[in-house]
C-alpha cells in the first residue's frame, strides 16, 4: 500500500531534479567562454522502483538518482598532450629564427653582402684615381661600414642568445611551478572526493595546467587510481613522465634546474638537470627543446643549427677577412711609402669586434695601393685586394659574397622548414582541440533548450504537487469532516 504522502515526496524529488538541471545549465552557460571548462552533465536515474507484488506499486526514492559529471574524452586529451609539444617547439623556433633572419637580412641594401659590394666598388674606383684622397677616404669608410655591420649583426645575435637563455630559465621555472601545482591538485582532488565533494572545477584546472605544460616540454600522462569514493567510484590522479623520468607522481613533483656555463672561448651553454640527483634532462620536444637548440646548437655532429652556429660562421667570415686582406695590405706601400700596415686591426678577428686598424683610421693616405715604394700610380696591391675579395676559392662555399649568401639561404631554408612544421602542428592540434570542444564545450542552444524543458517539467511537477495537495486536502477535510 502506498504511503499517503508518497506523492508529495515524489514531487519534491522531481522539483529538486529540475532545479539541479537548471543550476547545471546555468553553470554551463556561465562558463561557455571559460578556457579549459568541461561541460557538466546531469546523470539522472528514474529514481523509482515498481514492485508488482499484490498489485501494489512501491515507489522508492533513490537519493543518488541525480549526479553531475564532466564531459571529457581521455583519449582526445592524450592526443592533444602528445601533439602540443611539437606546436610549442616550432612556434618558438619560427619566432626566434625570424628574429635571426631580420638580423641577417641580405635582401635589403644594409646587409653584409651589400657592404662587401660597396667596398669592392670603392676599391675599383680607387684603381682609376689612385691619387685621390677622397677615393681613399671612401674605401676607409666602406671598411668601417662593413665592420660595423658585422659588429652589430654579431652583437644582435649575442643579445638574442641572451634572451633565449632567459627564456630557458623562465620556461624551467614555469615547468617546476606547473608540476608542483598539478601534484598539489592531485592531492586536493583526492581529499575533496574522499569527503564526498565535487572536484570537477579542480579537475578542469588540472587539465588546463597539463595543456599548458605540454607546450613547454614533451610529456606522457598516465591515469592512476589514487583512491576510492564512499560510493565506490575510483578517484583518478595523474602521473606525468617526460622521457623516462617522472615529473609528477601523484602528490609529489620533481623539479628541474638550469646550469649556465661559459667555456674558455666565450661560448655560452645552458644545460638542464634534475634538482634531486643532478642527472641531465634532455627534452625531446616543446618550447624548452626549441630554446635549448637555439641556445646551444652549433651545428656540429648533427646538432641543431642554432644561434652559435651562425655566430661561429660570422666569426669565421670575419677572421678570414682580416687575415686574407691584412696579408696583402701589409705587403703593400702607402703614399708615404709606409709598409707593414694592417687594414684591419689584427688583434680583433671576431665578427663582434672586427675593426679598421687605428693607423688607417688616422691616416687614410697609408692605404697600401702600391706593390713598390715610391710609385704613386702603382695599383698592383689594390688589384690584389680586389682579387682577394672576389676569390672564389677563399671558402669551401666560394668567395666572401658566396659565403654570406649561403649562410642566409641556409637560415631561410631552416625558417621555411620550421614554418611548414608549425603549420602542420597548428592544424593538427587545432583539429584535436575542436574535437575536444565538440565533447567538452558548452552549446548555448543546448543549454537553453534544456532550461526550457526543465522549466516546463518544473511547472508540471508543481502542478502535480498542487494536485496531490488537493487530493490530500480532500482526504483530510472531506473525510474527517
Amino acid at each position, binding site marked *: 500500500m502506498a504511503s499517503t504522502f508518497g506523492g508529495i515526496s515524489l514531487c519534491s524529488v522531481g522539483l529538486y531534479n529540475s532545479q539541479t538541471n537548471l543550476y547545471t545549465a546555468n553553470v554551463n552557460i556561465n562558463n*561557455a*567562454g571559460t578556457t579549459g571548462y568541461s*561541460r557538466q552533465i546531469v546523470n539522472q536515474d528514474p529514481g523509482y522502483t515498481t514492485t508488482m507484488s499484490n498489485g501494489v506499486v512501491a515507489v522508492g526514492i533513490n537519493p543518488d538518482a541525480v549526479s553531475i559529471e564532466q564531459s571529457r574524452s581521455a583519449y582526445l586529451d592524450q592526443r592533444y598532450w602528445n601533439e602540443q609539444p611539437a606546436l610549442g617547439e616550432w612556434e618558438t623556433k619560427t619566432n626566434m*629564427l*625570424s628574429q635571426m*633572419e*631580420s638580423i641577417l*637580412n*641580405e*635582401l635589403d641594401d644594409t646587409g653584409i*653582402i*651589400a657592404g662587401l*659590394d*660597396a667596398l*669592392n*666598388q670603392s676599391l*675599383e*674606383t680607387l*684603381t*682609376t*684615381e*689612385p*691619387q685621390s684622397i677622397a677615393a681613399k677616404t671612401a674605401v676607409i669608410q666602406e671598411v668601417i661600414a662593413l665592420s660595423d655591420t658585422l659588429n652589430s649583426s654579431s652583437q644582435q645575435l649575442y643579445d638574442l642568445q641572451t634572451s633565449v637563455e632567459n627564456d630557458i630559465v623562465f620556461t624551467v621555472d614555469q615547468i617546476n611551478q606547473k608540476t608542483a601545482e598539478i601534484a598539489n591538485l592531485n592531492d586536493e582532488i583526492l581529499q575533496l572526493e574522499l569527503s564526498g565533494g565535487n572536484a570537477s572545477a579542480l579537475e578542469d584546472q588540472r587539465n588546463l595546467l597539463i595543456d599548458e605544460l605540454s607546450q613547454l616540454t614533451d610529456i606522457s600522462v598516465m591515469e592512476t587510481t589514487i583512491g576510492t569514493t564512499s560510493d565506490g567510484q575510483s578517484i583518478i590522479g595523474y602521473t606525468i613522465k617526460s622521457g623516462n623520468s617522472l615529473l609528477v607522481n601523484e602528490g609529489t613533483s620533481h623539479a628541474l634546474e638550469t646550469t649556465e656555463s661559459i667555456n674558455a672561448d666565450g661560448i655560452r651553454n645552458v644545460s638542464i638537470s634534475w634538482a634531486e640527483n643532478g642527472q641531465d634532462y634532455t627534452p625531446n620536444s616543446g618550447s624548452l627543446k626549441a630554446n635549448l637548440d637555439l641556445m646551444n646548437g652549433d651545428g656540429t655532429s648533427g646538432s641543431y643549427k642554432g644561434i652559435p652556429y651562425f655566430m661561429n660562421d660570422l666569426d669565421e667570415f670575419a677572421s678570414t677577412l682580416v687575415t686574407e686582406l691584412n696579408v696583402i695590405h701589409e705587403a703593400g706601400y702607402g703614399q708615404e711609402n709606409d709598409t707593414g700596415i694592417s687594414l684591419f686591426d689584427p688583434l680583433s678577428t671576431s665578427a663582434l669586434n672586427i675593426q679598421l686598424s687605428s693607423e688607417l683610421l688616422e691616416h687614410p693616405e697609408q692605404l697600401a695601393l*702600391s706593390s*713598390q715604394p715610391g*710609385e*704613386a*700610380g*702603382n*695599383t*698592383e696591391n689594390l*688589384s690584389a685586394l*680586389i682579387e682577394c675579395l672576389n676569390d672564389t676559392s677563399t671558402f669551401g662555399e666560394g668567395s666572401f*659574397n658566396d659565403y654570406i*649568401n*649561403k649562410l*642566409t*639561404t641556409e*637560415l*631561410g*631554408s*631552416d*625558417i*621555411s622548414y620550421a*614554418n611548414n612544421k608549425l603549420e602542420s602542428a597548428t592544424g593538427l592540434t*587545432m583539429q584535436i*582541440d*575542436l574535437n575536444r*570542444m*565538440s*565533447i567538452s*564545450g*558548452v*552549446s*548555448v*542552444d543546448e543549454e*537553453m*533548450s534544456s532550461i*526550457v524543458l526543465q522549466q516546463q517539467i518544473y511547472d508540471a511537477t508543481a502542478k502535480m504537487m498542487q494536485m496531490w495537495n488537493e487530493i490530500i486536502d480532500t482526504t483530510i477535510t472531506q473525510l474527517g469532516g
Partner: protein
Amino acid sequence: MRVTNMMMMKSMNYNLEKNLSNMNDMYTQMSTGKSFQAASEDPVNASKSVLYTSYLTEIEQYQANAADATSRLSVTESSIGNLQEVLEQSRELTVQAANETLSEDDRLVVLAEVEELQEQLFEISNATYAGDSVFGGYNVTEAPFEVNGDDLLTYNGSALCLTGPYPETMSDIDIISLYNIYETDQITSELSDQNMVYNVGDNSQVDVNIEGQELFGAGENSVFAVMEKLRMALEGDTSYKTINNETTPPTVIEQELDISSLIEELDDCLDDVRSTKAEVGARKSYVEMTSNRLSQDYYTYTALLSSNEDVDIAEVSMNLANAEAVYSASLASGAKIIMPSLVDFIR
C-alpha cells in the same frame, strides 16, 4: 558531430586569422612589388636575387671603369698621334736637309725648326691626364722626362740615353766618367712592367697606359737620340760619340753622322710609334666591345632579377581582390554564426 559555441568561435578566429594573414601577404607583395620579403619565404630565389644584385653592382662599377679606361686611352692615343706628327715633320725636314742644294741660311732655318720640334717632343713626353702624367708608368705625380744637372735626359730619374749620342767635341774621359756615375741607374730595356690595369669585366682587364721607354725607346736609337743626332747633323757635326758597354771597361766609339742615314732611323722610330698607336687603338676597341657586352649583361641581369623577385601586378591584384572577398565573406558568415542562438528567440 556536436558543435559548440567555443568550437565555432575558435575555428572562426582561426580561419579569419588565416584569411587576414593571406590578405596581408598580398598587400605586402602589392605595396613592395616583390614576391618575397625575407629569404625564408623563398630561399632559392632569394639567394639568386642577392647574387644578381651583386652582379649588377659589379657591372655598374665595370662600366664606370670602362668609361675611365676609354678616356685615358683616348688621351694616350692623341698624345701618340702628336708624337707621330712631330716625327713625320722631322722626317720631311731631314729629307729636305739631305738635299745637297740646301743653302746655309736654309740649313739654319731647318735647324731652328728641328729644335722647335725637340721642344714639342719633350712636351708630348710629359703629357698629363687629369693631372697624372700619361707616359710615366707608376710615376704619375711628377713629370717623368727631365733633363738633370749633368745635362742627361732622365726617365723617372734614370738616364734614358746614357750610351749616346754625345757631341764629337766632348772628351772621351768626360763621357766615361759620366757613364760611370749613371751606369747603375739607367734604362736599358724597352720592355714595360708598370701596367695600370683596370677591371672592365669578370676576368677581363685592360692596360690603360703606355710607358715612356716603350713609346720613345731607350738608348741611342730612341726618338730622343735620333732627334738629337738630327740636330747635331744640322749644326754641321760630321760625327758623334757613343759608348760600347759590351767591353770592360766600356769604350767610347766615334760614329759617322750622315743626314740621309737618319731618314732610315726616323722611319724605324715612326714604325714603332705607329704600331704602339695601333695597339692603343686595339685596346680602345676592346674596351668599347666590353662596354657593349656590359650594357647587354646589365640588361640581362636586370631582367633576370625582375623576373626572379618582382610580382606580376595583374596577378597579385587578382589574388588580393580574391583574398579581400574571402575575408569579407568569412567576416559576414562569422557575424551570422556568432550572433544568433536560442537565447535570441526565447522571449
